[in-house]
């Protein structure tokens, strides 16, 4: 792992461990849990957009597949929750292959539209034929493994953020590997990638599957935490929300996905004090941040830190 990643990772772990200790209020932890769930989806989309150069507007679809498949399997299928979650990830992976094989031959906007269509199809299916229809269903069992059931807010906080840490570790390893290099190369020149014997389409499909699996994991966690789901949580709005998180955080840096997810999840909570004006202020902040931090928060932060460090070195 590169030095910067290691430092970031240590800070990240310390923050995750400290938050419940410093502020044990259920409210803070709940916001933290939703930030973590969103971060999982955002990390996947960040790899897909920032590294494979593909835009997806259908992440809510995979998120929904994760939530519904895992809930149904554990509630009606009698599967242990962990197995249900894993099966849901596999289901989302298969859905991703079915979508990717035709769609990734498309480029740019066409791919975005194809994924948008996929998200809408899933949404319509859940609405029309999903258990409970538009009003959804409840009684979904809590997350449990090895006979231990997670039912406290603190428990979920640690569970979800340790999964974020694991997913982050996996993703960092991946993008620092041969595969990650190939992905960055595709960004620069597909023509040259082909001439180097890289299978560009296969690589893109793999990343697309990965992003779907992450979204599915997040969806399952959401379902087992809230224990009630309805299609409205899995609409196009969610796909766009995740897209916003990744762009606000900075698509070229994986840490941007986490920062973006936290900012976008926490911001509406902080804006509660503006009461009916909150949506307006929210929109204003997003617009301004995209105007002034076009490349995203994290890349800009890194630049500032480098500059400060440069100044410090110059002074000595």
């Amino acid at each position, binding site marked *: 792992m590169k030095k910067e990643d290691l430092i970031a990772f240590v800070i990240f772990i310390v923050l995750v461990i400290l938050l419940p200790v410093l502020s044990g209020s259920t409210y803070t932890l709940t916001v933290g849990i939703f930030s973590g769930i969103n971060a999982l989806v955002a990390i996947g989309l960040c790899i897909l957009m920032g590294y494979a150069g593909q835009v997806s507007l259908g992440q809510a679809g995979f998120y929904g597949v994760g939530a519904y498949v895992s809930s149904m399997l554990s509630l009606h299928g009698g599967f242990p929750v962990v197995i249900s979650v894993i099966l849901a990830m596999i289901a989302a992976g298969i859905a991703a292959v079915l979508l990717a094989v035709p769609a990734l031959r498309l480029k740019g906007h066409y791919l975005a539209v194809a994924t948008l269509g996929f998200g809408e199809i899933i949404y319509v299916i859940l609405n029309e034929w999903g258990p409970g229809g538009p009003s959804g269903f409840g009684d979904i069992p809590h997350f449990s493994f090895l006979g231990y059931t997670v039912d406290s807010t603190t428990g979920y906080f640690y569970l979800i953020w340790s999964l974020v840490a694991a997913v982050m570790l*996996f*993703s960092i*390893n*991946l993008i620092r*590997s*041969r*595969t*990650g*290099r*190939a992905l*960055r*190369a595709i*960004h*620069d*020149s597909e*023509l*040259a*990638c*082909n*001439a*180097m*014997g*890289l*299978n*560009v389409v296969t690589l893109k499909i*793999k990343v697309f599957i*990965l992003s779907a699996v992450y979204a599915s994991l997040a969806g399952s966690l959401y379902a087992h935490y809230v224990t009630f789901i309805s299609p409205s949580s899995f609409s196009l709005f969610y796909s766009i929300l995740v897209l916003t998180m990744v762009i606000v955080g900075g698509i070229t840096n994986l840490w941007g996905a986490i920062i973006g997810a936290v900012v976008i999840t926490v911001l509406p909570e902080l804006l509660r004090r503006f009461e009916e004006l909150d949506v307006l202020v929210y929109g204003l902040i997003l617009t301004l941040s995209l105007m002034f931090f076009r490349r995203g928060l994290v890349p800009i932060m890194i630049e500032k830190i480098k500059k400060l460090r440069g100044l410090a070195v110059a002074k000595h």
Partner: protein
Amino acid sequence: MLSIRDVSKSFGGLTALSHVSCEVKKGEIKALIGPNGAGKTTLLNIVSGIYQPDKGEVLFLSEKIFHLTPTRIARKGISRTFQHVELFGNMTVIENIMVGRHARTRSGFFSSGLKLPTVMKEEREIQEKSAKILEYINLSPRRDELAANLPIGEQRILEIGRALATEPQLVLLDEPAAGLNMKETRDLGEIIKKIRNHLKITVVLVEHDMDLVMRISDSITVLNFGEVIADGTPLEVQKNPEVIVAYLGDEEEMPRGYSAHT
């Protein structure tokens, strides 16, 4: 090693190549020359799989390759550079070479994510081999610079290095001397000779710099308006009247039926 047999290609109504045949022998440096628009780059693109010929076939090591994708052809051992440099500009010099190793290494998606020991071992090998190639093409001092920041001469040489990283048996160089000054061109010539002499890699070279072509190539094929007008050693080609006409133009029409091969 490479035989191009009766290849024709047209784009819309425009004939880029018509009935082109040409043999590249193992271990030679073959130059492909001709005035602008003669179809040289089209021919390279057909060999490397970017285009498919309308007619005719391309054989590499006696195997038909003209229907394969560029990726498959690269994996079979044909690598190339581009007329308009196609480096990975946002990646460092060494990383560019490392991407070249991709097709010859195998660490998968999941083992990479989990950082298994086999992945680490392979990654070290990739780094060592890439560093060696960098040394071979004299670019070690530029190792960690972004490829886009190199001067054009070094970019072209880096592109050759990246092609070498794929362990090719044949490299196709598309105008490697374009935009290079005299010293850079001389260095380039040395590297091309080194590739053939030490690494035993066959080279096909599309080039306008006649000094370079005449100095390093073993045989030359001359294209004009999509047709082969001459084929032979540099000396033979230089003396060929049809070639002289193609390059310099003539005041009177060429006599009909005049052939360079007679």
